């Protein structure tokens, strides 16, 4: 009997019920998209933000040991100690290895540019040759073909021309300022002479004729604008530092810092064992830095806080904004349902009055409308979910160039939220049922 009443109610008020389902469905679609964004935006945005540079810098431990001489900080070992190139893979094998999205080594070598002179002194033009990976294989245990390099960690570099190929050691990028100063263009050949006092004259002579070809002009807004950037292999060859790197830039997906991570940052020993485990197993930049230092005992890893904190703040604000919009969507849908249900209850006042006259309790009458709301919520939620999945896919594709895939947790969440929205929408109208006196509606008083 109850099911007959419900099914007949749907048949009799099909237009209004469809309208209610569409209202919930649209809200559910919007919420599915927004929740997909809330869940996915962290990784997607962090990925996007990585284009503004790496967020962790690894250098030899000796580089961070400063001496205070006469009030001046001085590090006699700075630039004289190196990391091993074959240690790079260990960074990609830490606990948070999946969050490491890029690793780029650097080796800076001072060189002279043959045939060019400084404007001020007519002395040979002195500059830095920066050796790095552009897109190089770093074999790791889980993936022997893992590739990384500046193309991934330094997406903000603007290249006019083409990126050099790692296996073609004679291809280089030339900094924009340097290219302007020496009037170099893409395709030009440059001769580099090593400026290393420790090399013998014979070695200097051997490197004298190192010719490189400019494949592109790079603009970074930093020191690279006055340098030549080539392969790490060439830098090692020029400097004689085979298998050595000076610093490593690491891009890692991190979560915003919180009280726990700040406490760890000040003093790891102050953490209780439970706090330590929580911190260690969270993708805080400080935890990742700690794990890199564990993997490379001779290295010191530092977070680039401007990038890290900027990322965290932006992502957190964005997620808050999306959650607020999600709530607003559901409140709007609830109000829409409330309005539709109110009209329905007014229209069916006589029927409700009769049911009450026959002895139906308020709860029994409520159950009719709650069941209708439940069906509306469930059907609307499922339809909205399908629509929302499509919308999330497109939004992801348009905004991040890769689709946002619906996380499994969103499916039950959206259906439950849709049902709750519809139920909340009938709370106020059903209160009118309680105050509705059968004698008033049956006798038109």
């Amino acid at each position, binding site marked *: 009997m109850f099911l*007959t009443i419900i099914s007949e109610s749907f*048949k009799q008020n099909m237009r209004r019920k469809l309208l209610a389902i569409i209202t919930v469905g649209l809200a559910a679609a919007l919420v599915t998209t927004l929740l997909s964004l809330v869940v996915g935006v962290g990784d997607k945005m962090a990925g996007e933000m990585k284009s503004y540079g790496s967020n962790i810098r690894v250098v030899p431990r000796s580089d961070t040991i400063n001496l205070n001489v006469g009030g001046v900080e001085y590090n006699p070992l700075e630039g004289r100690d190196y990391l091993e190139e074959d240690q790079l893979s260990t960074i990609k094998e830490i606990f948070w290895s999946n969050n490491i999205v890029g690793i780029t080594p650097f080796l800076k070598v001072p060189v002279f540019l043959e045939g060019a002179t400084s404007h001020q002194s007519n002395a040979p033009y002195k500059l830095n040759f920066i050796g790095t990976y552009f897109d190089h294989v770093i074999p790791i245990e889980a993936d022997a073909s893992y590739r990384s390099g500046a193309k991934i960690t330094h997406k903000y570099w603007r290249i006019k021309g083409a990126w050099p190929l790692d296996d073609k050691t004679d291809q280089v990028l030339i900094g924009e300022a340097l290219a302007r100063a020496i009037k170099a263009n893409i395709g030009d050949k440059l001769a580099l002479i090593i400026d290393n006092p420790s090399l013998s004259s014979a070695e200097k002579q051997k490197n004298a004729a190192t010719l490189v070809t400019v494949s592109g002009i790079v603009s970074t807004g930093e020191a690279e604008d006055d340098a030549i950037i080539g392969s790490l292999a060439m830098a090692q060859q020029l400097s004689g530092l085979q298998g050595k790197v000076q610093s490593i830039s690491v891009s890692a997906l991190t979560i915003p810092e919180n009280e726990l991570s700040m406490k760890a940052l000040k003093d790891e020993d102050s953490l209780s064992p439970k706090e330590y485990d929580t911190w260690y197993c969270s993708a805080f930049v400080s935890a990742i830095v700690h794990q890199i230092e564990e993997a490379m005992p001779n290295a010191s890893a530092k977070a680039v806080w401007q990038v890290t904190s900027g990322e965290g703040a932006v992502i957190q604000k964005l997620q808050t904004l999306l959650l607020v919009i999600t709530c607003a969507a559901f409140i709007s849908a609830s109000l829409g349902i409330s309005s539709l249900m109110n009209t329905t209850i007014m229209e069916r006042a006589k029927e409700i009055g*009769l049911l009450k*006259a*026959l*002895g*139906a309790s308020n709860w*029994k009458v409520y159950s009719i409308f709650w069941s209708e709301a439940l069906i509306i919520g469930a059907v609307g939620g499922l339809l909205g979910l399908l629509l929302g999945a499509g919308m999330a896919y497109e939004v992801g594709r348009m905004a991040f160039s890769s689709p946002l895939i619906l996380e499994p947790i969103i499916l039950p969440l959206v259906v439950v939220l849709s049902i709750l929205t519809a139920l909340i929408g009938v709370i106020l109208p059903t209160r009118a049922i309680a105050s509705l*006196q059968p004698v008033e509606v049956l006798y038109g008083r």
Partner: protein
Amino acid sequence: MLEVAVQAQTSAAQTAPVQSDQKVIEVQGLCRYFGSVKALDNADFSISKGEFVAIMGPSGSGKTTLLNILSCLDSPTAGQYYLDGVEVSQLEEQKRAVIRREKIGLVFQQFHLIPYLSAVENVMLAQHYHSVPDKAEALQMLETIGLGDRATHLPSQLSGGEQQRVCIARALINDCAIILADEPTGNLDEENERLVISLLKELNAQGRTIAMVTHNPELGMVADRIIKVRYGHIESEGLDDA
């Protein structure tokens, strides 16, 4: 088929009503005011078990107001109402709903059938809110009142008399001892009026207490007793000798 049912009803109506001195309805000083309008003022009377009482009076006299209070659809402004010896006048709505479904069968002038439910489903509706719907029992009830072949028809497919009989079947299905009818023949033609009255007489003969509101003096004559209401007052009680 209808004629057979009518004959059966007429024959049953000739059976002597079962009455007792037990008062199932008793009101004392019953008042119902709507603002300054005294729809019912200081009404006192009682109805015994198995009695067939007609509540009569001109339009606006307060007879429907009285019936609404007796049906527990409305509460009096003042006074006492004892139903089966229990004071029910000031009960809250939820408790009055329990009394309505357990003790009282209601028959309306406007029938008040759910338009999208068939005749048998309308009867089962009262079962649903009382206990458990039993389709076989509901069909049997429609059969008894001569509507067995109309069970699956919607109210819009039934005549006024048939709708009223469905309404009566709904009032009877839970085997309530008291039937309260508000102008049960008010919207019927003469033939259907006769049918419905026969049905009520038969129910009374089976021992049910019936209170029927009507303004038709001829209908009043079929009752055991008439309670006359005028300007909200009980004017007289007893058989109408006017």
